[in-house]
C-alpha cells in the first residue's frame, strides 16, 4: 500500500495521459513530410522529378505542355523536392486527408512560356 501511494496520487491529480483528439490536434513538426504541391508558374518541364520518382507518380508530357501527378501513387519521399532546380515542387508538412476516388492532377507548366517571352 505505501509503495503504491505516490503513483495513485500522481494519477489522480495529473490529468489525462493522452491528448483529446480530434478536439485537440497537435501541430505538425516543421520538417515533417506531409504532401507535395506543384507551382505551375515555375515549372519548365525539365523532367528531373519524373526521372527520380521511385513510384512513377509524375509524368511529363512535352507536346501538351503539361505535368500529370498521381497523388495515390506518391510515397511522399520528397526526392522530387530535392531534385527540382526551379523550386516548382512545394513541400508541405500537413498530412493528406482520405479520399473516395483516386485523383489525378494535371498541371499546365507556365515557366517555359515566360522564358520564351523574355527572349
Amino acid at each position, binding site marked *: 500500500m505505501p509503495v503504491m501511494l505516490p503513483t495513485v496520487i500522481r494519477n489522480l491529480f495529473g490529468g489525462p495521459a493522452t491528448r483529446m483528439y480530434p478536439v485537440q490536434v497537435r501541430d505538425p513538426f516543421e520538417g515533417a513530410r506531409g504532401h507535395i504541391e506543384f507551382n505551375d508558374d515555375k515549372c519548365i518541364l525539365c523532367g528531373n522529378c519524373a526521372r527520380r520518382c*521511385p*513510384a*512513377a*507518380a509524375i509524368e511529363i508530357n512535352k507536346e501538351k505542355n503539361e505535368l500529370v501527378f*498521381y497523388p495515390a*501513387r506518391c510515397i511522399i519521399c520528397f526526392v522530387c523536392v530535392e531534385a527540382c532546380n526551379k523550386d516548382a515542387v512545394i513541400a508541405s508538412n500537413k498530412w493528406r486527408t482520405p479520399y473516395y476516388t483516386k485523383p489525378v492532377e494535371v498541371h499546365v507548366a507556365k515557366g517555359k512560356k515566360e522564358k520564351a517571352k523574355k527572349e
Partner: protein
Amino acid sequence: MIENLKEISKDTLLQEVQKFADAKARFVTTVCSDLGDKLEVTYYFNYSPGVDMVALRMFVGKDEEVPSISGIYLTAVLSENEMFEQYGLKVKDMAIDFGGLMLLGKDSPVKPMVKDNAAGGKGGE
C-alpha cells in the same frame, strides 16, 4: 571483394560443412545467383562467439542435383527451399520439403528470379 572465400564442388560440400559443424560455427545464409548458363551458390558460416565470417562457393548447372545440408544444420532448410522455388536448384533430401509452395502460391510465376523471366512494367501499375 568477399574475404575468406573458398571454392568447392558439390561432391565435397557435405565434408566441408561437417568440418564447420565440428568447429561449432554458426550457419549464416546461402546466396544463389544466376550467371546465365549456370548457378553460383555461396554458403556463409560464422565462427561463434565472434564475428569472423567464411564463405564456400560452388558452381552448378541448372539441372544438377545438390545434396542438402539440413541434416547437419536444420536451419538451412528455409534457405534451401527458397533457392529451389526461386531458381529451380534441385536439392536432395531436405529435412522439411515445402514442394515449391513455401513463399510462392499455386498461381505465382514459376522460378521468378531466373534472368530471362523479367517482370517488366512500370512501378505503380
